[in-house]
């Protein structure tokens, strides 16, 4: 039905440079407004954290059964979000899906920034934040070490590993682009890019090592991403609490993470495409492919959800079962059903070609998907704490203003980081788009040559890439 190309392979390389560099210049009023909003959100969070720091965890409405609240669920949410970059960049890189090229950069940035956001939450939720470094194994005369059996220590290790690996991945992948920026910038930017591009000249030696390094990084990033979210799930699964002590949690968390990551990519895809006029790079077919991928992951997530419910149901562990029933019928039922609806029903819009080509719809849908994912994390953390073994301590908890302010502010923090990023760094990978264009053009030329050779008339169908899903 729609036979567009992923990208117009005739696009001039100079135009690519110009388009992307243009996006980094002269912020418009809207940009400053967005920055202002983000800063204000951040101020909310800072104020709330100030209250919490000075008075204790009480204002967050945490209490005896609910020792963890939305901080931890938001932590899981952001960690999940961080899997987008890994998925789009590393996995698709390894399987040579070249349509990732125009959109992976911002996905990777998202990975890094959402990790930087996620990492704040376990710290914020500590009762004694000022002692957070005790989790790290450092040498002291007291001979103290952290308890390496604790999943929270695993978290600390995993997040720092993941953060450094994904930052390196983002950075390495950006070096050739930084060199482009360096060659086109003036003033402080020139200095900045000169330092950051590390003297990139595009020599064949640099390219060779670059390609290998990038591949190695990607190879490590994939198991790392899986392990990170498995470890995050271990925060729950390693406990004995009903509803947490679930063997399917690691894959469930990973699927949820990829899901929310994809959904967030769609959101940012639409925003960047619209605001930076990247229509030529972030094309509808690429959107379609992303949507299809998201749909597939959504179905995996749905399946794992069902598996979890079924295993609880057939396992007949009374405490587990009680929590499951309470999730669906108890005080948090509305959250649960919104999660199920938005997470398992709404994604079917992604299967409809007409809808997934409609950017505003996809924007709304992706927000709904992320809402579902946010609720999913809440449904993991809260009901178990509310309804665990001891009925005497059953309780219902909703987050207080302080908690909400900090969670709200975390979106501002993420937004701010992202806004700064898009104006300082190229949010579309120029060299890779060039590569994509180069290879597709070459492919096209070869195809044409072959066609001429075989005297085929009809060569209009033989564009590169996959054709659209016929009449979905």
């Amino acid at each position: 039905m729609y036979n567009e190309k992923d990208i117009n392979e005739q696009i001039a390389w100079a135009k690519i440079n110009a388009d992307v560099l243009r996006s980094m210049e002269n912020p418009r009023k809207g940009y400053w407004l967005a920055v202002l909003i983000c800063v204000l959100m951040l101020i909310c969070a800072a104020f709330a954290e100030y209250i919490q720091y000075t008075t204790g965890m009480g204002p967050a409405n945490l209490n005896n059964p609910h020792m963890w609240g939305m901080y931890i669920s938001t932590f899981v949410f952001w960690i999940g979000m961080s899997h987008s970059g890994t998925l789009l960049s590393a996995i698709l890189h390894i399987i040579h899906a070249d349509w990732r090229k125009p959109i992976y950069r911002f996905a990777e940035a998202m990975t890094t920034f959402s990790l930087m956001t996620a990492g704040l939450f376990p710290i914020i939720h500590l009762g004694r934040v000022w002692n957070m470094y005790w989790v790290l194994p450092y040498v002291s005369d007291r001979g103290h070490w952290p308890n390496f059996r604790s999943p929270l220590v695993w978290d600390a290790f995993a997040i720092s590993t993941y953060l450094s690996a994904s930052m390196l991945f983002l950075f390495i992948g950006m070096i050739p682009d930084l060199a482009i920026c360096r060659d086109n910038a003036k003033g402080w930017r020139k200095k900045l890019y000169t330092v950051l591009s590390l003297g990139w000249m595009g020599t064949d030696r640099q390219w060779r090592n670059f390609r290998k390094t990038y591949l190695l990084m990607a190879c490590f990033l994939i198991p790392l991403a899986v392990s990170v979210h498995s470890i995050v799930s271990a925060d729950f699964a390693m406990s004995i609490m009903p509803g947490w002590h679930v063997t399917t949690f690691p894959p469930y968390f990973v699927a949820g993470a990829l899901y929310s990551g994809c959904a967030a990519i769609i959101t940012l895809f639409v925003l960047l495409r619209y605001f930076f006029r990247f229509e030529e790079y972030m094309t509808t077919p690429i959107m379609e492919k992303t949507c299809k991928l998201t749909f597939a992951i959504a179905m995996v997530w749905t399946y794992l959800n069902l598996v979890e419910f079924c295993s609880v149901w057939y396992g007949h562990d009374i405490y587990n079962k009680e929590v499951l029933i309470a999730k669906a019928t108890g005080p948090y039922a509305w959250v649960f059903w919104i999660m199920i609806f938005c997470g398992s029903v709404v994604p079917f819009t992604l299967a409809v070609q007409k809808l997934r080509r409609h950017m505003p719809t996809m924007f709304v849908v992706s927000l709904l998907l992320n809402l579902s994912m946010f609720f999913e994390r809440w449904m993991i953390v809260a009901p178990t704490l509310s309804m665990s073994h001891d009925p005497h301590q059953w309780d219902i908890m909703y987050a207080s203003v302080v908690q909400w302010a900090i969670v709200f502010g975390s979106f501002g923090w993420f937004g701010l980081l992202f806004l700064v990023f898009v104006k300082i760094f190229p949010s579309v990978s120029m060299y890779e788009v060039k590569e994509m264009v180069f290879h597709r053009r070459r492919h096209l030329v070869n195809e044409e040559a072959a066609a001429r050779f075989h005297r085929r008339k009809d060569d209009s169908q033989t564009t590169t890439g996959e054709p659209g899903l016929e009449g979905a």
Partner: protein
Amino acid sequence: MSKHCVMGLFSDFDEAFAAISDIRKTKVPGVSVDDVTLKSPIEHPEIEEVLGERPVHVQKFTLFGAIFGVTFGFFFLAGAQATFLVQPQGGKAVVPLPSNFVLMYEMLIFFAVWCTFFAYLFLSGLLRKRHTLYSEKVSLDQVGILIDVDEDCLEPIKDLFKRHKALEIREEVLR
């Protein structure tokens, strides 16, 4: 005899490719394909067809990092766990392997990734003073060929570049 360095800029990769294969074929005395450097805005792995295979060693450092990470991880964790004055055990192992595996895994990746990164910086010759013979057009859309030659070979190379429709030729005397 002073050494010279010449750079020719070409409008596309095919031209550059042809130029290098010419260098290889013509066998100008004192000019070796090993002295040729290709500067391109994107990667051209196919250039090795004419430049000859040039090995990459990054993965060895990665392997080292991985092995170091996992062994260091084990000894570090076990050592730390054994030095707790009071063992928080409750009948469980002092050095619990299953949970240590998790951290060893993380440390494996941590060290592997960082080793890769530093090996990359080192092996690809980054973080060094930039060559003066660099055209910003290389980062745009042109392909450059950089070659170190003796003074007497300078002209043949230039001719060769011109023959291949080089858009621009620059040269520099190396000390």
